[in-house]
């Protein structure tokens, strides 16, 4: 279990101190696939680096399996890092070593005998589906293949936690799907806790059980992926789940307001809401944006309506009578 308590990190910069992380509190259960999502600059990468102390937190604690990572000596920390391995956006393989030698590398560092290391590395290359690339150099591989080698390398020391720092951000959609399914398999087969840092909603939806939304160095909200994505409570959450800002020109805020609807099951999603509002109540709603998405076996929908101010109260009353639907007024154009 990873327990992050009151974690903060400030960087000194020429313009003064920058608060990269502020009072972060997260609990990541064993065996979970935990997503940390946020826009660039939200502090995701700093947060994940605080877990293995590549970044020293300015305040707060990070406990991994009951061990205070910040209190370890340099030697203890190096040993602890064998249990908390990491994969990266740019794969970060050693370019002058073959794939097999890359996978052997962490075992070499910890003093595993060469023959044993090679045997284990071959097994791992098999696990990630690249046994035939053992003798190839990273430059001869595609991005997806390089990430597979990096995953094999990260598994070489039998870690308990795998940190994925934007591991699929440099890959195309179909390769991303393959890497994600590999990570999911590894989580299921080996029971390794996976922490996924990403700015892509699709990644979280695809593999994560829990998610935390990070916004300007704080946790905006967290919980089960299905719950958070179905009805994001925070502004940052809404920005991520319902991307795209409303153009100021689309509606005249003096005359019309905006209503955000979230449908929580397919029965609700299939109600012809806008038509019924018009026919039954004479409300002239117009659709600004609408999406549906599958989440955990259910279909969720989101819709942004613009409604004349004088009809807003009636619209809310009508929508409030429908089960599994939440409606809230949006005033800040987010």
């Amino acid at each position: 279990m990873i327990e992050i308590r009151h974690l903060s990190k400030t960087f000194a910069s020429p313009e003064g101190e920058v608060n990269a992380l502020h009072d972060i509190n997260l609990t990541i259960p064993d065996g979970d696939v935990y997503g940390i999502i946020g826009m660039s600059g939200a502090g995701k990468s700093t947060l994940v680096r605080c877990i293995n102390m590549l970044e020293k937190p300015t305040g707060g604690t990070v406990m991994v399996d009951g061990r205070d990572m910040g209190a370890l000596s340099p030697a203890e920390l190096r040993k602890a890092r064998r249990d908390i391995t990491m994969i990266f956006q740019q794969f970060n393989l050693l370019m002058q070593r073959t794939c097999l030698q890359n996978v052997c590398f962490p075992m070499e560092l910890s003093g595993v005998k060469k023959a044993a290391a090679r045997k284990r590395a071959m097994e791992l290359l098999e696990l990630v589906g690249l046994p035939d690339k053992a003798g190839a150099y990273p430059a001869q591989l595609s991005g997806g293949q390089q990430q597979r080698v990096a995953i094999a390398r990260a598994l070489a020391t039998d870690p308990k936690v795998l940190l994925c720092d934007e591991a699929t951000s440099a890959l195309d959609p179909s390769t991303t799907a393959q890497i994600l399914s590999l990570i999911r398999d590894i989580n299921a087969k080996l029971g390794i806790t996976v922490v996924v840092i990403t700015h892509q909603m699709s990644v979280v939806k695809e593999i994560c059980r829990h998610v935390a939304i990070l916004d300007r160095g704080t946790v905006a909200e967290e919980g089960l992926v299905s719950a958070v994505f179905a009805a994001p409570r925070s502004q940052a959450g809404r920005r991520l789940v319902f991307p795209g800002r409303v153009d100021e020109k689309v509606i005249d805020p003096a005359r019309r307001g905006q209503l955000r609807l979230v449908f929580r099951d397919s029965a609700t999603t299939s109600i012809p809401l806008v038509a019924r509002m018009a026919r039954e109540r004479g409300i002239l709603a117009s659709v600004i944006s609408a999406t549906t998405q599958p989440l955990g076996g259910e279909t969720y929908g989101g819709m942004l309506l613009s409604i004349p101010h004088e009809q807003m109260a009636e619209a809310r009353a009508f929508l409030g009578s429908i089960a599994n639907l939440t409606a809230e007024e949006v005033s800040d154009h987010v």
Partner: protein
Amino acid sequence: MYNGLISADSVAQALQCLKTEIPFAIWETFYVTVISTALAVLVGLPLGVLLVAGEKGGVLPLPGWLMKALNVVINLLRSIPFLILMIMVFPLSRLLIGTTVGTTATIVPLVAAAFPFIARLVESSLREVDPNIVEAAQSMGATPLQIITRVMLPESVPSLLHNVTIALTTILGYSAMSGIIGGGGLGQIAINYGYYRYKYLVMLLAVVLLILLVQFFQTVGTKLAVRSDKRLKH
């Protein structure tokens, strides 16, 4: 100066020289260059590593004053003109080799001139190593020494070979200069014949041979560097 450069007389002299003195001179230049470069790498490589690893935020941060001192000393040695440096290290040559003249004695000023240069070249090679790869090694629990010996140096081998080749050809040029203080080799032939005895054809011949040696070193060095680089798809 070049009037009557080619005459029956001068050609005969040049041919004579080519047969008698030049083969050994080529060997002297070759061996002084290679030995001096090897020794200079021996000193310069660790210093170059320290310049990168020891800085603030490096893998093995050293005290600031030490880094400053190191930088100052390297810059200082690099700013002394080689001609002067050769004379300044006479006492050191006498101490180490027992003499200040002769081919072997010139190894001392050559190493003294080349190791700070090599330290800077090594520094630039190591700075090319992707910091993300270093971070990856740190995330795997590598010690600073492991990062230096198993990541930074192996990853920069192609660049190091390129830079050592540059150093080698520079040292070759310096070794020719040491002909002035009694060092042997092609430089001595060029100076003795060309400058002191006005036998310009022999001087030109020595210069051409120096050029060929530089070409040889550069070609071999570039080939080795390219061949060693696994980032290129062969």
